[in-house]
């Protein structure tokens, strides 16, 4: 089973957006992730799940180039992550809004920030940039709220604004860190639709790190279960059949199992 997942991954390697091979990372002598393989190809929707403390966040930071792995190799859009130049090719939605709650800014201003790395941060915005910003807001259903202050929006609407910010550079790869925690069902549905739009219309790949997969369970191509090492890598249907026999305790991962049934 594990070897099947590996060979499937090898096929996609030529064009892989994320290519993690044999990566380990330790804080001091405490190993956090060990010998992890993970790939995301264009048009692929991969979910990375695991209990708290499973190393998800650490692996994500390694992929984004904020941490250097102790062993193994990482390629992000074909480059060593810290050396990736055209970073607009990567769209990133952070775990919690890292914005202060009282920040005086409109949705449009926040989303426009997402265009800067692509348009050139020292340049004036051109029409094509304005259009990309508008399109990003439409794709998360925030067009009518474009000129509202973000601090007036609900938690779910704010999260969609951050997703639109990531969309604004028209990325080839979208990485989302726990984006749907504590978001209402309506926002979750729109969230799912906007990811599907990005994959189908723009051919992007998506890596979603989450506890909660029920909103997107029908569109995920692969689930990767991490608990220091990779416990499972394959399509969601197979995980439902084999999950528990892999030594993954259901109580560790209650939400995604529920979503996938």
């Amino acid at each position: 089973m594990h070897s099947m997942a590996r060979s499937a991954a090898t096929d996609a390697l030529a064009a892989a957006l994320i290519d993690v091979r044999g990566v380990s990372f330790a804080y001091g002598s405490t190993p956090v992730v060990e010998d992890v393989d993970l790939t995301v190809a264009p048009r692929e929707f991969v979910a990375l799940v695991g209990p708290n403390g499973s190393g998800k966040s650490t692996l994500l930071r390694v992929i984004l180039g904020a941490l250097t792995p102790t062993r193994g190799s990482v390629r992000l859009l074909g480059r060593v992550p810290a050396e990736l130049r055209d970073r607009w090719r990567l769209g990133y939605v952070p775990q919690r809004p890292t914005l202060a709650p009282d920040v005086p800014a409109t949705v449009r201003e926040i989303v426009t920030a997402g265009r800067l790395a692509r348009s050139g941060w020292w340049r004036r915005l051109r029409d094509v940039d304005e259009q990309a910003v508008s399109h990003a807001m439409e794709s998360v259903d925030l067009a009518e709220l474009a000129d509202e202050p973000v601090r007036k929006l609900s938690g779910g609407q704010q999260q969609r604004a951050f997703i639109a910010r990531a969309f604004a550079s028209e990325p080839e790869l979208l990485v989302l860190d726990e984006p749907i925690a504590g978001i209402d069902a309506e926002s979750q549905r729109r969230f799912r639709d906007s990811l599907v739009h990005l994959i189908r219309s723009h051919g992007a790949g998506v890596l979603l790190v989450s506890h909660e997969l029920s909103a997107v369970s029908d569109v995920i191509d692969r689930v990767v279960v991490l608990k220091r090492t990779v416990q499972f890598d394959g399509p969601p249907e197979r995980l439902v059949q084999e999950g528990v026999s892999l030594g993954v305790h259901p109580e560790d991962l209650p939400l995604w199992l529920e979503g996938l049934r």
Partner: protein
Amino acid sequence: MIAELPLPYPFELGFMQRALVAGLVVGLFAPLIGTFLVQKRLSLMGDGIGHVAFAGVGAGLLVGVYPLWTALAFAIVGALGVEWLRARRKAGGDLALALFFYSGIALGVVLASARGGLSVSVLGFLFGQPLTVDPAEIAVILLLGAAVVLVVVTLRRVLFAIVTDEEWSRVAGLPVRSMNALLATLTAVAVVASMQIVGILLIAALMVLPVATGQLLGRSFRGTIAVAVAVGVGSVILGLSASRIWGLAPGGAIVLVAALVFLIVAVVRHSIPGGFAVEVGGS
């Protein structure tokens, strides 16, 4: 020389007109820089840098160098030092500021007294002497003001992205370090060039108080800057007028007007149903 302009009382005299021009320029660029500093939770940056610059003045007087140059060197090093400590999370933004703030003013006092006591001219750097501004100083502050406005307006989008969400900006590949260093340097240059004219108190206060009002009234970041600059400029006009009419200290009068404007706006907004309360309860 700048000729006297036919302005009405209280600005009919040359010295008042020079104070007005200097004040207006500071009233414009201080809130402009300040809006970015406040988002970074570095509201006290201007004050902290002012006190480091004060140490530079002491050092200049001690070794016989023109104090403005040593003040500028100290201020830039101090501003980059605060930024360095903050970015590496060696200390929180406010703690980093406090370290430089207290060391700076202590060093300033020690250096100035080593040469023979605190003179009136040293105190002038703290509170400024807007009414004795000469045309050369006007030229300096106009040039500086133009430079600050040009840089900030050109780079407003990237500065906005970085000061509101530094972690995301880093992942997105925006030039976080160089823009933070630029903002720190701009702050240092602005403080030092203005301090002899309007005083550390005035420049530092105008970096924060008008912005506080801007945050209450502005729906957008752009709107916040516009309100902050309007309040800064308005406070200078009202404060200088008050100081002429009632013989008050001009720097202090300007700062008090800016504080009063915030108080009035905050009270009025709070008492209007559906105003301030809705904005806070939004999420």
